[in-house]
């Protein structure tokens, strides 16, 4: 499969995530769109790892494995991020009784 098809797919997924962050006000949906963007990047990393494998397998039997290890670490960091982020959203809900991010504008005043 040509690599640019994977690149277009990952760009489209990433931009849908960006639109979700910009156009929604629910903090949880915004958080989910960030997960979507992370997954678009993961998909592209795996596609590039397979591309480098195809190019370098003659010299090195595990060429391109770094990309997949990196995806693994991104998943680790995303899991840690979700646990802390959801705790913050729950705390915000307890303080304001809403998940609307527009309530959190105290830095503006």
């Amino acid at each position, binding site marked *: *499969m040509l690599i640019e098809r994977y690149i277009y797919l990952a*760009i489209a997924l990433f931009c849908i995530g960006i*639109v979700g962050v910009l*156009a929604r006000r*629910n903090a*949880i949906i915004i958080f989910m*769109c960030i997960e979507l963007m992370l*997954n678009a990047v993961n998909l592209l990393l795996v596609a*590039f790892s397979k591309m480098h494998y195809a190019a370098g397998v003659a010299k090195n039997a595990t060429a391109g494995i770094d990309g997949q290890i990196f995806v693994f670490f991104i998943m680790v960091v995303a899991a840690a991020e979700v646990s802390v982020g959801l705790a913050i959203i729950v705390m915000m809900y307890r303080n304001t009784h809403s*998940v609307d991010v527009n309530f959190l504008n105290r830095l503006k005043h």
Partner: protein
Amino acid sequence: MDISQILFYALSAMALGSAIMVVISRNPVHSVLWLIVTFFAISGHYILMNAQFLGIVNLIVYAGAIMVLFLFVIMLMNLNAEAEPQKNKWLKLAGVVAGGCLLLVMVAALKQAEVKGQIAILGTGDIGLIKNLGQALFTDYVVPFEISSVLFLSAMVGAVVIGKK
């Protein structure tokens, strides 16, 4: 068109369609369910590229653990379509236009990219198997692996500290 190309296009359409549904659903629970569909499609892409370990981990960690956490929080707060905060129509339009501009810029930047025309091989190659990934993870990448366990510990402590207040 062979079977892997058909699978590629079907999984891509599924991923894009359900990603759009995540953004436009009014009900947050529906958004979570559509995001799970997206993750299944992305896992299908991983398996198509023979990255079996990442495909399974994506299902277990993302679709299994993280999305259940999201659903748990949404149901704890009793959010539904009526309680959904609505942005002004023009702000939504501005968000869509900004995202579309980003899409345009990225696609235009790809026009001259030197990776164009290279092949990501589907179905074969054994770098995605558990044996090879585990060998790389516990030899070349053992220090980042141990540091990520410390990161998990600090995330756990952080979540408990934030949640107890």
